[in-house]
C-alpha cells in the first residue's frame, strides 16, 4: 500500500511543494515509464446480453489527471468502479502500477476515492472520518493526528473549528472538501473521483475545479476523474477520454479535443458546434470538396469521411466570420439572420446556412461591432482548416 513507500507527500509542506505547472511526472521515479493504470482489452456486461464497456484500452501515466467524459450510461463510471474494485471486469485485465488487480479486493488496492454523494460517515466527526483510513492501517494516534491536520490544511479547513463537527453540520462545499481530504489523507498514489462536484452550485463548482487542479499539481498524485460536464473536463484535465456507448471516442488533451475532434460525436459533445450536412465529392491532399444540401460547394479538412460518403462538417461558432475579407476565409456562403442574442461579452447570431437554421456565429462585443437585424442576408466564411469533414452519424 501507498504509505509504506516512504514518500509521504502530506508530511512535506504542501505550500512548498512543486510550483504550479511544473512537470507532473517526477523524473527521479525509475518506474515512471510504467503506466499507473492500464486497461487491457477490458469488457464489462451486467446482463450477459449487452456490453456496457466494449474493448477498453487505456494507459494512464503516473501523475496524470485523466478525465473520463461522457453522457450518462456511456460506461465511464463503470470503468472507474472497475479500477476501484467494486465491479469486476467481465473480460480483460486492469493493471495498477504494473500489477494485475482483477483479483485484489477493493480494500487492498490502496486507491483513494471521492464519491458523488461524498459518502462521509454521518456518525463520525470530521476528524474521525479523516482518521478512519489511518486507523485501519494501524497508524499511531499522534502521527494520524498530524496527517489529519495536514490534509485539512490542504483543503483550507484546518483552522480547528471543523474537527469535532459532524458531516451534516457542514455545507455541501465543505463536505466536498472533507471527502477530498479523506481520499488523500492516507497518501494513495491514485485517486478516483466520481462526479465529485455534481451536487454543488455553479460558482462553487468552478472554484473547486481550480482547487482540485492545484492540489493535484502540488501533490503529483494520479487522478482519474469522471464527469459529464465538458467544461469541467476541459478546465482540469491533462487528457480526456470521451466515452460514448461503451467506447472511447477520442483520447486527447483538452485543446486537441476541442480544436481537432475526430468524429462528430466528440465535435458535438465538446463545446458548441455548427453542423452542416453534405456529401464528399472528392478528396485532394487532405482537403475534401463537399457539396452541401443546398448545392453549394465548400472545402473542408478530410478527417473522417471518404469520397462519395455523406459527411457532417464541424465548424466552431467563434471561427466563423461575418462578411469576411478574402485574407481571413477561403470561402463564403450565404446566410440569413434569424435571431440576435446579446450576451454582454459576446453576441450570438443564429442563422440559416445551407438549410441548417441552428447555425450560430459568436462575435466578440468589441467597439463598433456590427449588429445585424433578423431577416438580413449576409455572407459568412471560415478558414478551410477550421472546417472538419467528419462521419455522418
Amino acid at each position, binding site marked *: *500500500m501507498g504509505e509504506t513507500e516512504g514518500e509521504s507527500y502530506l508530511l512535506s509542506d504542501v505550500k512548498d511543494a512543486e510550483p504550479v505547472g511544473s512537470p507532473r511526472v517526477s523524473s527521479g521515479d525509475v518506474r515512471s515509464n510504467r503506466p499507473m493504470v492500464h486497461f487491457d482489452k477490458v469488457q464489462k456486461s451486467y446482463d450477459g446480453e449487452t456490453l456496457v464497456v466494449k474493448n477498453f484500452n487505456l494507459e494512464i501515466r503516473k501523475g496524470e489527471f485523466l478525465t473520463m467524459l461522457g453522457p450518462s450510461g456511456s460506461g465511464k463510471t463503470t470503468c472507474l468502479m472497475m479500477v*476501484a*474494485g*467494486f465491479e469486476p471486469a467481465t473480460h480483460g485485465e486492469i493493471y495498477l502500477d504494473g500489477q494485475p488487480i482483477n483479483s485484489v*479486493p*477493493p*480494500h*487492498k*488496492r*490502496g*486507491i*483513494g*476515492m471521492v*464519491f*458523488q*454523494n461524498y*459518502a*462521509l*460517515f*454521518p*456518525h463520525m466527526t470530521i476528524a474521525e472520518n479523516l482518521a*478512519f*483510513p489511518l486507523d*485501519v*492501517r494501524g497508524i499511531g494516534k499522534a502521527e494520524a493526528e498530524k496527517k489529519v491536520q495536514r490534509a485539512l490544511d490542504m483543503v483550507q479547513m484546518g483552522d480547528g473549528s471543523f474537527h469535532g463537527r459532524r458531516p451534516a453540520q457542514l455545507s455541501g462545499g465543505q463536505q466536498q472538501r472533507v471527502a477530498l481530504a*479523506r*481520499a488523500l489523507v*492516507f497518501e494513495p498514489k491514485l485517486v*478516483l473521483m466520481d462526479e465529485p462536484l455534481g451536487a454543488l452550485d455553479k460558482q462553487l463548482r468552478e472554484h473547486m475545479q481550480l482547487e482540485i487542479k492545484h492540489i493535484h499539481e502540488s501533490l503529483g498524485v494520479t487522478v482519474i476523474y469522471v464527469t459529464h460536464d465538458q467544461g469541467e473536463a476541459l478546465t482540469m484535465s491533462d487528457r480526456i477520454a470521451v466515452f460514448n456507448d461503451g467506447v472511447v471516442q477520442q483520447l486527447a488533451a483538452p485543446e486537441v479535443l476541442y480544436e481537432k475532434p475526430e468524429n462528430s460525436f466528440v465535435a458535438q459533445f465538446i463545446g458548441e458546434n455548427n453542423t452542416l450536412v453534405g456529401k464528399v465529392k472528392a478528396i485532394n491532399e487532405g482537403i475534401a470538396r463537399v457539396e452541401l444540401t443546398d448545392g453549394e460547394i465548400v472545402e473542408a479538412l478530410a478527417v473522417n469521411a471518404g469520397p462519395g460518403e455523406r459527411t457532417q462538417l464541424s465548424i466552431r461558432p467563434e471561427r466563423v466570420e461575418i462578411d469576411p475579407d478574402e485574407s481571413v476565409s477561403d470561402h463564403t456562403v450565404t446566410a440569413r439572420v434569424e435571431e440576435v442574442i446579446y450576451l454582454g461579452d459576446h453576441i450570438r447570431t443564429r442563422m440559416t446556412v445551407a438549410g441548417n437554421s441552428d447555425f450560430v456565429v459568436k462575435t466578440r462585443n468589441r467597439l463598433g461591432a456590427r449588429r445585424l437585424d433578423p431577416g438580413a442576408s449576409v455572407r459568412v466564411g471560415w478558414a478551410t482548416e477550421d472546417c472538419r469533414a467528419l462521419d455522418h452519424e
Partner: protein
Amino acid sequence: MASTDGAIKEPILAADGTPLKQALRRSQARERRAAFLLVAPLLLFILIVFAVPIASMIWRSVYNPEVRNFLPQTAAALQEWDGEDVPPEPVFQAMAADMIVGVEKRTIGRAAARINREIPGARSRMMRTAREVDEWSAPYREKFLEADERWSDLDFWRLLKRETRLVTPAYYLLALDYEYTADGEIRPRPEVYRIYKALFWRTAWMSMLITGICILLAYPISYLMATQPARVANLLLILVLLPFWTSLLVRTSAWIVLLQQQGVINELLVALDIIDSRGRLRMIYNRTGTIIAMTHILLPFMVLPLYSVMKTIPPSYLRAAKSLGAHPFRAWWRVYFPLTIPGLAAGCILVFILAIGYYITPALVGGDSGIFISNLIAQNMQGSSAQLKLAAALATILLVAVLVVYWVFNKLVGVDKLKFG
C-alpha cells in the same frame, strides 16, 4: 438567537404595538385549537378504554375494603388493642354490632370470606356466631368465647387489625412469592407455592432469547432486502409479513403438524436415520415450541424497522470504507452497523415488549414449561375476587417491568433516535 450587538433589550413589537411573541401566539392559536380538535376523539377513546382501565387495575391490586367497610366498628375498636392478649369487651361489642348490621345487609359473608382466605375455618365460625348474635346481650366477650373457644385465637384478631387498612401490599407480596404472617411480618412463601417469581424470570429470559434470535434472523434478511431491487425486496417483504396474514389457528396447527413427535420434522429425521424412533425430539408443548412459534410471529417487528433504516444507508458508505482500506468486516462493523442501531434498537424494544406480555402462543404451544407470566395472569383473572386482585398485581408488575425496559432503552439509545418504520 441572541441579538448580535446586545443593544436590543426591548421586545420586538408587531405593527399594532403588541409584542411580537404575543401576536405570534395569537395567530397560531387557531391552528392549535384545530389540531387539538382533530385528535380529541382519539384522545377520549384512549382515555376511556385504555387509561381508565389501567388505573382501575392498579387500584384494584391494592384495594382491600372488606374489613374496613363491612366490620367498621370492630376495625375502629381494634385500633386501641395492643395485640398481646384476647381483646377487651369493647371489641367484642363492636363485633356483635357489625355482625347484626352485616347479616341485615348480607355483607358479613364477604368479610368472613376475606378472613377465611388466611385462616381456614374462620368463615363458618363467623357465620354461625353472626346468626346467633342478635339474641345475645352484653357482656359479649363471654358469649363469644362460650359459643366458640376459637374466638380467643390471637392470630384471628391480629389479622383483623392488620386488614383494617384500605390499601394493602398483600397481593404484590403474593405475586413475588412472599406472604404476610398474621402479625404483619413478611416472609417467603413455602417452596411449593413459589411460582410467580420463577415465571417472571422465565418470561424475561425467554423474551430476551426470542429477541436475540429475531436479531440473528432479521439482520441478514433486512440487509438483503435493502440491497436488492424493489421487485425482489417486495417479494421478500411479503414472505416476512406472511405470519400477519395467516390466522393464528392456521399458523398454530401448521406448527403442530411440523413439530409434534409424529410430525414432519421428526419423521424426516427418523427417515434420514439422524435420530431413532424412540429418541424423537419434543419441539412443541414446551419451551422450544414457544420460542420457535413466537420468533416466527415477532420476526416482522424486527425486520421492518431494520429494513427501513438500512434502506436509507447509501451503498457508497460501505464502498467508501473499503476504498479507504477497511476489511469488509471492519467496514461493516465501523460504518454500517452503527448506522443501523436506531432500527435495531427499535426492533429490540418492539419484540421484547411484545414478547414479555405475549399470551396466546405460549398458551397454545407452550405446554407447562413454555408458559409465560401472562398465562398465569389470565388464569387468575377467571378466578375469585382475590385471584382477580392477584392478577391485577401481576399485571401491574409486568407493566412496571415494561416501563423500566423502556426507560433503560431511552438511557442507552435515546427513544427520539429510534426508527420504527
